[in-house]
């Protein structure tokens, strides 16, 4: 049987090589032209603790982590107990026979990873033993594996040759061992390598890289899962003349420091997760009223307060769009793929500079840690767009009128007071009704500058449409493709611009009988925001801390569309 994709779940304890094995498999597969996508969970303790990572390998571009597990690699007994029920009946379970024995499961095959690795003289090659075994299960030619290993370990060092030899030996041992068992999944179709350059990276890395490509000057942050990796990347790479990256003492310092930097003319950003985002509330209101460009990234995790730090959820949308007291409606961009992490970051910076105010860039845990291959961005196509700068003399009225006005940069003529109290056109505090009216309308009016034209649409003539947001895009699109193929009459819309929505999109949505919004929260937050704008929207919700399964979405969308049609027919 020829297969077009397969899913491997690696489960064990932190420190056993669960994540490195999954990422190693993804690297091996992409190296030879397949697509790969990983889904990682974190252990809730620092050392050890149960953890698992899933890798999906496919001939075609991948949208979701995959519903069913074809192969489980169980590093210990607990991992087997916890995960074996998710392995399909014809699947395979490779268990670490150096750790435990498994009886009475016909899917099981014991592989002594550590012992085989040791026999090659390279203790660290256990993940290669596993990859070799997996390659056999999907009938992947040996030369692919050898190609991967020699590319990966040719680093111009004296030990390279020995490392390549031991790794190839480890893979061969894994392959030979499992071949004796007679277990197999089928033959994976030959890869269909794209004819363009690719990179492979995590969502948070893509986001950080996008921000740098977009001309970021200034970054501060405070450690918090799952946003910390962005801080770490910036501390290492946002360096040199005119740049600044630093760990500050709280999220209150993060937001206020980037307010200072944005005021001083820099492209400034911070990234955080729920608890830190809540602390930034007052500062975001200040950015809105004082008209200061800045970007806040919210890498969503689950629940209120400390909540579920290591799980994924899409429950911060209301908080991101309405983060502060007073009349405030923040521009929000929510990314849905690793590629969008890169381009969304550039767009968020551009938006903040364009309308001179804060922009919230939303992502989520499942994207932050996801490793995926994407087309290599062409930096010559990326523009570093900056705000309109005031270039006149002193005595400037910075907040005059209802339209955006050029922004003076400290050190240059045009001094004014950036004021968090309601103010007159020079930035001095006032309580005059006429000023509050003018400034309120000015602030809301500027949102028009962020209206975009482009969005995804398909099957637009249908009266029912699916429109996910953020990280639910992948599973929803995969579900949509299946529904479409099986003739369920439903259309597709998607945008990462949640506020303001592209006006043409909003007009289209308003004409639908129903817009179904799959989202990972209890209240159906985006559906409710759409309803407030005149769209007949209903959410399909889930709040398990995990992403949607495609199968569940197909079922639930089908149910909803049937119910609507029955109702319309008066059945």
């Amino acid at each position, binding site marked *: 049987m020829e297969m077009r994709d397969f899913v491997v779940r690696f489960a064990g304890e932190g420190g056993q090589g669960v994540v490195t094995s999954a990422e190693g498999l993804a690297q091996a597969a992409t190296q030879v032209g397949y697509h790969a996508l990983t889904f990682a969970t974190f252990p809730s303790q620092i050392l050890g603790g149960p953890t698992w990572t899933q890798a999906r390998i496919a001939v075609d571009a991948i949208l979701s982590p995959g519903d069913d597990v074809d192969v489980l690699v169980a590093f210990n007994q607990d991992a087997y107990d916890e995960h074996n029920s998710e392995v399909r009946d014809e699947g395979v379970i490779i268990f670490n026979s150096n750790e435990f024995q498994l009886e009475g499961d016909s899917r099981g095959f014991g592989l002594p990873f550590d012992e085989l690795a040791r026999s090659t003289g390279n203790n660290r090659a256990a993940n290669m033993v596993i990859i070799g075994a997996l390659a056999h299960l999907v009938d992947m030619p040996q030369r692919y594996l050898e190609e991967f290993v020699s590319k990966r370990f040719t680093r111009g060092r004296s030990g390279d040759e020995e490392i390549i030899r031991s790794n190839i030996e480890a893979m061969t041992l894994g392959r030979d061992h499992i071949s004796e068992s007679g277990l197999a999944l089928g033959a994976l179709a030959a890869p269909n390598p794209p004819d363009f350059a690719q990179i492979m990276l995590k969502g948070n890395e893509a986001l950080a890289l996008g921000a740098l490509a977009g001309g970021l000057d200034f970054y501060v942050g405070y450690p918090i899962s799952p946003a910390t990796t962005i801080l770490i990347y910036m501390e290492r790479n946002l360096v040199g003349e005119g740049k600044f990256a630093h760990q500050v003492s709280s999220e209150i310092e993060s937001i206020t420091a980037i307010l200072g930097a944005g005021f001083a003319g820099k492209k400034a950003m911070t990234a955080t997760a729920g608890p830190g985002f809540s602390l930034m509330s007052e500062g975001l209101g200040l950015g809105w009223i004082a008209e200061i460009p800045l970007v806040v990234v919210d890498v969503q995790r689950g629940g209120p307060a400390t909540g579920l730090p290591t799980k994924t959820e899409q429950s911060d949308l209301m908080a991101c769009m309405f983060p502060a007291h007073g009349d405030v409606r923040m521009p929000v961009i929510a990314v849905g793929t690793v590629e969008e992490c890169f381009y969304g970051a550039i767009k968020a910076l551009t938006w903040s500079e364009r309308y001179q105010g804060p922009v919230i860039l939303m992502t989520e845990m499942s994207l932050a840690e996801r490793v995926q291959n994407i087309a290599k961005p062409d930096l010559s196509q990326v523009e570093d767009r900056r705000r309109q700068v005031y270039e006149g003399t002193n005595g400037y009225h910075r907040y005059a009128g209802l339209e955006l006005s050029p922004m003076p940069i400290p050190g*240059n003529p045009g001094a004014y007071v950036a004021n968090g109290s309601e103010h007159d056109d020079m930035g001095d505090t006032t309580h005059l009704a006429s000023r509050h009216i003018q400034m309120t309308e000015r602030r809301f009016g500027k949102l028009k500058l962020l209206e975009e034209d482009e969005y995804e649409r398909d099957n637009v003539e249908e009266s029912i449409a699916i429109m996910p947001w953020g990280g639910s895009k992948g599973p929803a699109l995969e579900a949509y493709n299946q529904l479409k193929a099986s003739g369920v009459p439903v259309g597709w819309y998607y945008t990462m611009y949640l506020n303001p929505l592209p006006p043409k999109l909003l007009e289209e949505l308003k004409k639908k009988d129903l817009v179904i919004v799959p989202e990972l929260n209890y209240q159906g937050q985006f559906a409710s925001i759409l309803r407030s704008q005149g769209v007949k929207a209903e959410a399909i919700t889930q709040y398990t801390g995990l992403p949607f399964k495609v199968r569940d979405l197909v079922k639930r969308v089908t149910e909803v569309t049937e119910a609507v049609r029955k109702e319309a027919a008066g059945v």
Partner: protein
Amino acid sequence: MSKKNEEYDFKWCPGCGDFGVRRALEMAMIDRLEETGLPIENNVVVAGIGCSGNLVHLLEGSQPYGFHGIHGRSLPISLGVKMARPELNVVVVAGDGDFLSIGGEHIGPQAARNLNVCAVIMDNGVYGLTKGQSSPTTKLGEITSSTPFGKIESQLNPLELYLTLGVSFIASGFSGQVRPLAKLITQGMEHKGFSIVHVQSPCTTYNDTFELLKGNVQKGIEPGLWEVPEDHDTSDKGAAQQLLQQGGVPVGVLYDDTFRPSMDQQVEQMWARAEPKTVQELVDAFEF
């Protein structure tokens, strides 16, 4: 604002100490302008929320940049401004409530970083703008609108706190002595690193301490203010600590560490170790 602005609708009460602090800051900025030749736009005044923070709108003459933000956060805002543009002269103006209560968490980190800004603190021992509640520097036992039976928290000594936290320049002044205060602010601005000029700036409406500070011979009130002796060694932290044991309010520079590099200097040194990569190189690193 340089001229009378009809729309601006805040006024300090007659006799408020903040008038003197404003004058002193103006003098210091003009002195700086004359000395360095750098234009007034090279100065940024980051203000806290309180009667004191309104100083940023009440400056007369040519105008510096201002940032009037949110309560307690003037220090981290100044961190952003200064590290974005180290060439700017950044001054923080805030009250005792703003700086020591809600914003107290930011003093230690800026001291540790030796952030090169000058904070001018207007201490009136009360929350003026919210009409007379107790602040960290209100005396133990004092009756205020929020302590009807007397304050049960002990009074904070901010100067001791600054010394303990490692602030690298600490001066204490009085709003009634404008010229000397201007000189302290100038020294604070010239200091390479985090400087605090802590000013007794009485609130004539809710906590009038002028008499206690200046003394009154007729009433037999000894002046609370005393000059820091000329032979005080400002590089000696121990000596500064000893001075503070005398009680009352010293006037002058207590501590001045001229050796520690400031945050911007340290960042610049760090670049030499960092070997910056271009964005293209960073993208290429993810190629496979």
